[in-house]
């Protein structure tokens, strides 16, 4: 069983920097780390912090323009100076990588059993000398990861995200490695599927006494599967320690920011309160005179159904949904992918036509005609998930924010409208941002520009589809704080669509849980999240960090 040692490892990429000629980008800047045999380590950090680079360097899987200095010892051998032959022999037999299979880590034109067999043919010819023996092994491996054996002859596109991930795990175990490196193994998966995959992985690691390095930007995932967590920022390790401690009592400010992105549900400290802003009606706020109660019903959805024809079948995305939204309230619409929540949001915005039922604004049903719809759009606006893709890369901030007012020919000085909107989105001084283009801004700033664009029309209601899912964990808090502030200062209600229950706990008044096109539960946040009635809601809550679980039962490194 090898011990993995990183000794002052520095990894840099030579890039062809357009403006300045050759450039050198340092991905890992002096990391020293030890992984004892049989232990599990989580590498946490935001995108670009170097965690993937560090992990992939164990098997020298970095692209050709990467330079590695320092030592990486796998047992007694230094990986950086190994010969190619020895390296190829080490790969997969001593250490194996579980890539993010939901993307394109599997060959699309080969059956998955062939791909697993390939590993066996390379390294384990002695143990599995003929095809029959190898196929038997493939079936064994699939059973280990809880997959029906018949799936072996499938092509990757025929499998779901969770199934593909389990194939990746099965493939990694094919040659009995002693170290598993899991690179963002659950990132693109739903929380429930995520929990299943993690169960399989941790079960196998535990049963076989394997070492595990898991990389993720999600601290809660790491806390649930690893004994120790190592937090990286800009290529350096900024904090290291037992996972429970890092998760609940982080010391380094960056770790604190990361941990804040995963609020504990039920914890009053994170209810309507974020780093930087605490709402007047938060449990932790000082009692104040007036707290605005939500007003009348402004937006309503009655018996709404939306069906699509897809691949020759009728697909029911939204199934007879009834909802009411009041002025000035934040409603969180929670569901996993495939639940229909985005379709519902787009139908409310008039971007999708309902098959039956209606959307009513201030009592009047939405028209299908472009002109009437345009008037409606002044009042209900949209914030999308990926701020980078939501802005035309060639338009300046000014043009992006002014687009709405120009389309509606709003009266008044355009410049003032744009400046006010930018200020409301907390981009001050607004003039500084007028001529910036999206690539000059950070992710959080871009999302603020999108919000400003919506605010420029002075809407009464905002529909935000996963507004923080594409942002770094440290920026998440800022944007959520902004939404909360807009609610309290401008009376702006919002429908926030998310898969993240923690977000609902952070800022929402009410929460609606959706599954496969239907509403399974709705009510105030306190009711639904602390005392869930429906089984599905309970299931969702069981896999996210909550105040009860933090008492030590669910964390490995307690």
């Amino acid at each position, binding site marked *: 069983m090898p011990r993995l040692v990183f000794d002052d490892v520095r990894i840099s990429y030579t890039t062809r920097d357009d403006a300045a000629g050759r450039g050198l980008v340092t991905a890992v800047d002096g990391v020293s780390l030890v992984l004892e045999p049989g232990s599990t380590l989580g590498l946490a950090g935001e995108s670009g912090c170097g965690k993937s680079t560090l992990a992939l360097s164990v098997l020298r899987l970095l692209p050709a323009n990467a330079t590695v200095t320092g030592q990486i010892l796998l047992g007694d051998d230094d990986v950086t100076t190994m010969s190619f032959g020895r390296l*190829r022999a*080490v790969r997969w037999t001593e250490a194996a990588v579980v890539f993010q299979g939901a993307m394109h880590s599997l*060959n699309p034109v080969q059956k998955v059993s062939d791909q697993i067999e390939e590993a066996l043919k390379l390294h384990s010819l002695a143990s599995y000398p003929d095809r029959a023996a190898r196929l038997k092994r493939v079936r064994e491996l699939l059973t280990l990861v809880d997959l029906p054996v018949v799936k072996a002859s*499938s092509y990757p*596109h025929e499998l779901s995200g969770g199934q593909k991930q389990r194939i990746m795990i099965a493939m990694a175990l094919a040659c009995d490695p002693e170290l598993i490196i899991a690179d963002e193994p659950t990132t693109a998966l739903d929380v429930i599927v995520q929990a299943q995959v993690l169960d399989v992985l941790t079960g196998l690691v535990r049963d076989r006494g394997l070492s595990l390095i898991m990389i993720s930007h999600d601290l809660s995932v790491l806390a649930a599967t690893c004994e120790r967590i190592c937090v990286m920022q800009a290529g350096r390790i900024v904090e290291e320690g037992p996972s429970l401690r890092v998760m609940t009592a982080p010391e380094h400010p960056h770790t604190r920011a990361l941990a804040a992105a995963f609020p504990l549900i039920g914890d009053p400290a994170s209810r309507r309160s974020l780093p930087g802003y605490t709402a007047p009606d938060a449990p932790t706020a000082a009692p104040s005179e007036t707290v605005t109660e939500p007003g009348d019903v402004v937006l309503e959805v009655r018996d709404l159904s939306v069906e699509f024809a897809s691949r020759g*079948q009728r697909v029911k995305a939204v199934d007879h949904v009834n909802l009411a939204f009041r002025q000035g309230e934040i409603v969180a619409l929670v569901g996993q992918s495939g639940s*229909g929540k985005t379709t519902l949001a787009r139908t409310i915005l008039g971007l999708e036509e309902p098959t039956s039922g209606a959307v009513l604004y201030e009592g009047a049903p939405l028209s299908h005609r472009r002109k009437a719809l345009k008037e409606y759009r002044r009042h209900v606006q949209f914030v999308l998930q990926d701020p980078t893709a939501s802005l035309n890369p060639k338009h300046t901030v000014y043009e992006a924010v002014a687009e709405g007012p120009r389309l509606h020919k709003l009266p008044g000085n355009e410049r003032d409208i744009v400046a006010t909107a930018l200020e409301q989105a907390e981009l001050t001084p607004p003039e500084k941002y007028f001529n910036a283009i999206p690539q000059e801004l950070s992710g959080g700033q871009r999302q603020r520009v999108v919000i400003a664009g919506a605010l420029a029309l002075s809407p009464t209601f905002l529909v935000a589809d996963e507004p923080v899912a594409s942002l770094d964990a440290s920026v998440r808090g800022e944007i959520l704080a902004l939404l909360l502030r807009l609610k309290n200062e401008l009376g702006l209600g919002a429908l926030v669509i998310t898969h993240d229950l923690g977000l609902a706990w952070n800022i929402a008044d009410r929460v609606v849980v959706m599954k496969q096109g239907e509403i399974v539960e709705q009510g105030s946040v306190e009711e639904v999240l602390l005392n869930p009635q429906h089984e599905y809601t309970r299931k969702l809550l069981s896999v996210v960090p909550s105040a009860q679980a933090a008492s030590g039962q669910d964390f490995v490194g307690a």
Partner: protein
Amino acid sequence: MTATLDATESLQQITQEESRPRAASWPRYIARKGGGALISLGMVVLLGFFAFRILPGDPAISMTRGRRVSAEQVDQLRKEFGLDQPLIIQFFHFVGGLFRGDLGTSYTFHRPVAELIGSHIGATLLLTGTAAVLSIILGLWLGQRAAWKRGSLFDKTQTGLALIFWSVPTFWLGLILLLLFGGFLQWFPTGGLVTPGSNETGIALVWDVIRHLVLPVVTMVAVVYAQYLMVMRASLLEEMTADYLTTARAKGLKEDLVRRRHAVPNALLPTVTLIFLTLGGLVGGAVTVETVFSWPGLGYLTFQALSAPDLPLLQGTFVVFSSIVIIMNFAADLVYRVLDPRLKAS
């Protein structure tokens, strides 16, 4: 049975319909692609007919351009080709004739067009078929090797040569080869399918045809292989950034095998599509090459038709050429489905 689906997914599906392979069962797939092919064939017939009738210029006048004819002779011509009847009647005659295999009568040869085409099509298929197969083999092999050795001398020379050949007009290359090997060095005959006046049979005939085939085929291959090389190279270069190749390397596979077993098969798919899409260009090349080398195929026939101008013959060759390409594209769709597992319905 209804299922559920998120809107963004379906929207993306709909917008990427063309680029993403859609799974369907065989009968559906054949119906869809076959239907498309039939519609295209229909449009060819329409275009073939109306191009000569509707565009400015009286067909009878076009046919007799540059010739001294009297007004009565022009009228006579009109009657002979049925040009004095209403357009719709003419169209039905035309379509009816197509189904019977009657494409009209050639003005210059005074024989049925269908018969002329029938006797010339073999030579064209021999020429284009040989050229296509050779270009594909050459282009694909060089292209994948150039992509793998990207930046090397091999890659640079191959890419450079391909770009040059891509810029060469096919007919001019034919002229040059004719000049050099036919006229100057006299290694190969200067035209025709067989040596005129000889009555060879069996192996001797085959050998004679091959000798005559060399220059035209070399001409066509030189221009066409370049396109296939560039496409294969670009396709493989793009494939080489794929994630599953990292997985293959992580398993301990040698670079060579990573390329051959994983990258190339995936890169072949878009290449195959593009190859079949450019078949029309191959046909165009046939016209010019056959003209330069007096190769008695459909292309040469087309050249003779346009010189006259012999409208029925031109119409016939247009319809036949286009139909061949449409049918080949349909065949390509079928081949592609066999190759790409993502198109098979589970």
